């Protein structure tokens, strides 16, 4: 009892301050004592690195800020910094993430333990600076650990968890922390930040074990002929498997130390639910506000919020799915010409088959290029999910498109 009271006191002592998700991430970078930041400005990410530059200029963070001419170079420099043993960070969005694509594979292939934040944004053409998940969905098979976060606080906390996971010698994979551009990146929320000593005690710097060092020469990034390439890529498959346990452990330890934890997925109003909606980032937050209204009209739909996307927390998702009759998956990206045009829906379809689950799947594409979605739209989706218990919806529904 005494311990619990003490813990509560400890948590209560910290006063939240108003921060946008972008600022919260910059604070995390400062509190993690990151050594190298290389970035190129792109909205809606820009204020992350602007804030970091301010911290460096004000002497609050001692780090090398590398100004580069493109995102391709930004990630290249970040990878190189990590391989010299530095704690390295970068941030991007949209076209920037696309331009990094080549280096995304190189970062994971070289096992560079970096963390990158992505303020998710739609892709050109036509030009859209608004939010959807097309950028990150295009990066999902690059060997990065991918988190979707739902609040500024969670963004702060997950960047910190990210380094603990990435730098673990059993993992050594880059981590992406993704959140909705504008809707979150530029919106103020109350955020508790932690002092650097506590953050570093939780996520001590563990530099790359084969770092570039003239005293101990190594070769990184050598040519791998057909006798070698496959094994080196397979190492990532195994590292991803281990990352799942490490992510769980990182979240639990974070909870013990700082009083906040999230789980790898979050099931909201799942008890007695007969149907689920799968959503990530800000949509999940909105659904939490809307679902009680659905239950009032007898639509017993829960929310399965995907927080960790890669590695996929299969057991937790299957467990949630095994207790419902239908699941509606909201995709904020389009997989053109695919069986379901929602990339997540395709994965859920595979999962349902793999585990022999008797669940009706509804694939919904929504919010493309930040097409407006208000509470009533989510209520409609909840009703659709509910209906799908008995009525099959075999085709992807493009919600809100003018037809």
């Amino acid at each position, binding site marked *: 009892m005494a311990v619990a009271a003490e813990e509560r006191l400890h948590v209560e002592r910290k006063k939240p301050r108003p921060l946008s998700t972008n600022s919260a991430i910059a604070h995390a970078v400062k509190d993690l004592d990151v050594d190298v930041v290389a970035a190129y400005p792109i909205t809606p990410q820009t204020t992350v690195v602007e804030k970091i530059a301010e911290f460096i200029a004000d002497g609050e963070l001692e780090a090398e800020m590398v100004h580069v001419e493109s995102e391709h170079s930004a990630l290249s420099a970040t990878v190189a910094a990590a391989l010299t043993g530095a704690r390295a960070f970068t941030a991007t969005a949209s076209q920037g993430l696309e331009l990094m694509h080549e280096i995304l594979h190189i970062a994971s292939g070289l096992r560079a333990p970096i963390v990158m934040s992505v303020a998710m944004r739609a892709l050109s053409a036509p030009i859209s600076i608004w939010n959807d998940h097309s950028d990150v969905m295009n990066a999902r098979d690059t060997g990065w650990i991918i988190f979707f976060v739902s609040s500024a606080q969670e963004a702060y906390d997950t960047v910190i968890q990210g380094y603990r996971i990435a730098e673990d010698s059993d993992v050594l994979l880059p981590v992406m922390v993704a959140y909705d551009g504008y809707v979150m990146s530029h919106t103020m929320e109350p955020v508790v930040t932690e002092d650097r000593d506590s953050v570093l005690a939780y996520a001590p710097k563990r530099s790359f074990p*084969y770092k570039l060092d003239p005293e101990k020469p*190594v070769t*990184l990034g050598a040519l791998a002929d057909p*006798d*070698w390439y496959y*094994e080196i890529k397979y*190492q990532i498959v195994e590292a991803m498997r281990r990352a799942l346990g490490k992510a769980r452990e990182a979240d639990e330890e974070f909870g013990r130390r700082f009083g906040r934890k999230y789980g790898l997925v979050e099931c909201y109003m799942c008890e007695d639910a007969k149907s689920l909606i799968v959503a990530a980032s800000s949509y999940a937050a909105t659904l939490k506000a809307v679902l009680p209204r659905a239950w009032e009209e007898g639509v017993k739909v829960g929310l399965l919020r995907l927080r960790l996307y890669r590695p996929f927390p299969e057991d937790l998702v299957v467990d949630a799915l095994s207790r419902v009759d239908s699941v509606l998956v909201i995709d904020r990206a389009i997989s053109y010409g695919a069986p379901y045009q929602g990339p997540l829906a395709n994965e859920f379809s595979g999962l349902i088959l793999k585990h022999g689950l008797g669940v009706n799947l509804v694939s919904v594409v929504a919010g493309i290029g930040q097409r407006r979605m208000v509470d009533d739209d989510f209520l409609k989706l909840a009703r659709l999910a509910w209906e799908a218990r008995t009525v099959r919806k075999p085709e992807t529904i493009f919600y809100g498109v003018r037809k």
Partner: protein
Amino acid sequence: MSSEGSLPAYYEIPPGGAILEPGSSLKYKTGSWRVLRPIINQDKCVRCRLCWVYCPDAAILELDEEYVTSKGRRYKITYKVNYDYCKGCGVCARECPVNAIEMVPEPIGGEE
């Protein structure tokens, strides 16, 4: 390179294929790639060192070997090709300012 059966399993390879042994590329004899063999005409060669500079595989050797040309000119060094690593790209022949290097086809299926 060893046969497939004796190659290490994925977990025996350092993460990301990091090579922890310096100079291990010496084990990889790129000379087996060669279809054209550079032959240096020692009489024509003026010891300018350009081939040594340009060779992408460091396969031109600069040796402290004396050489006297047919016209009696005496050189203290001799340039030779290390055929273990020369992959036959022809860059040296292209760069040689006095055309002292000739690219000669390797015998088909033949050994050095």
